[in-house]
């Protein structure tokens, strides 16, 4: 059961998919599993839907693990899923959020890459798609979105880690989310979770021009980071992608923001400073716990500020 599932170690794709089935079976009134597409290698792409009723209510999207090697993100996503079911009906904030909104959680956003990290190359980051005319494999799914695609801050070389792909949405893992978000039409918050570097970022990544909601997004980021740091003292930096780290065109949250999803954020989770994304398993639960506080802060704000 999900009560005996070990959240403090890293799991394979099969184990996580089995966990999702268990969570659905144990919470049929709250959790359902949607298949939003298939990967390049034919694996199903699943999203957990947490809902107390209604169809296409305002919703919050959370995804983890678009960069497959960042294992603490998929592990945290698993923990978040269980936490939502535990807190619903117990925690006033989560109960209120789910009374008004749905939450979509994609725990393994890049299943091919994730499976590859377990079977062949622990350090694999990209998708596993092939590019015609190149012997190099994979596209960086965080440079493949239709937001300033192909501009500086992504690579046109298939052999690099930040290869953007031949065209926007060339990756089925990206296109599946794009189709889902467009079809849903009522997603109000979108949070994409990466590791590492301890950052909470908002648009834009392709330009240093402030986004029109910068003041509000910045203030909310500050509150979220404060909540996160309150648990273990982990220090986070926040700001726009461009000004805080580097120019990154074709990234996820620039696209979601361009679709009118005002509350678009991306996290870079905990980094002890010694391991990068190879975070020891002992840090999974502290990382998930502290991140959860920031997520609740953002979700609560989204609920309280309809637009």
């Amino acid at each position, binding site marked *: 059961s999900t009560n*005996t599932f*070990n959240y403090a170690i890293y799991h394979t794709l099969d184990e996580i998919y089995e966990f999702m089935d268990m969570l659905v079976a144990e919470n049929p009134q709250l959790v359902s599993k949607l298949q939003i597409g298939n990967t390049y290698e034919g694996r199903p792409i699943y999203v957990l839907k947490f809902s107390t009723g209604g169809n296409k209510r305002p919703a919050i999207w959370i995804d983890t693990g678009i960069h497959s090697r960042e294992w603490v993100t998929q592990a945290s996503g698993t923990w978040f899923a269980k936490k939502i079911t535990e807190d619903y009906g117990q925690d006033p904030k989560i109960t209120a959020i789910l009374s008004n909104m749905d939450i979509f959680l994609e725990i393994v956003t890049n299943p091919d890459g994730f499976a590859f990290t377990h*079977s062949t190359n622990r*350090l694999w980051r990209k998708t596993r798609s092939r590019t015609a005319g190149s012997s190099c494999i994979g596209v960086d799914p965080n440079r493949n979105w239709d937001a300033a695609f192909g501009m500086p801050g992504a690579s046109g070389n298939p052999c690099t880690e930040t290869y953007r792909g031949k065209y926007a949405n060339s990756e089925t893992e990206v296109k599946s989310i794009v189709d889902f978000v467009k079809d849903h039409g009522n997603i109000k918050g979108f949070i994409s979770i990466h590791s590492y570097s301890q950052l909470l970022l908002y648009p834009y990544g392709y330009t240093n021009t402030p986004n029109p909601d910068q003041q509000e997004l910045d203030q909310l980021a500050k509150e979220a980071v404060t909540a996160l740091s309150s648990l273990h003292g982990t220090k986070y930096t926040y700001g726009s992608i461009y000004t805080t780290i*580097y120019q990154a065109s074709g990234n996820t949250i620039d696209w979601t923001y361009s679709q009118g999803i005002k509350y678009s954020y991306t996290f870079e989770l905990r980094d002890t400073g*010694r391991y*990068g*994304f*190879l975070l020891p398993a002992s840090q999974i639960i502290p990382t998930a716990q502290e991140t959860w506080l920031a997520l609740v802060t953002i979700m609560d704000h989204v609920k309280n500020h309809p637009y």
Partner: protein
Amino acid sequence: LENFVGHQVLRISAADEAQVQKVKELEDLEHLQLDFWRGPAQPGSSIDVRVPFPSIQAVKVFLEAHAISYSIMIEDVQSLLDEEQEQMFAFQGRAR
């Protein structure tokens, strides 16, 4: 499983824009097969790069020649991966 014995992860600190540009030059040298975990951004922010064993000497010489400071963040990537595997086996099946 791909082996990463002898691969190191260097944490580079570029002091100014010129040094950032120098590190970007490294990024373009495909034969070194560098894997930038955290890419070159602005001066002062850390750059983390995994360097395969055969390229370590060349990269360090390059950095030292341009007076770019760095430290070894991960001494041997494979030993860290082995530890991770051992942990996974040891804790498999243990309830939270």
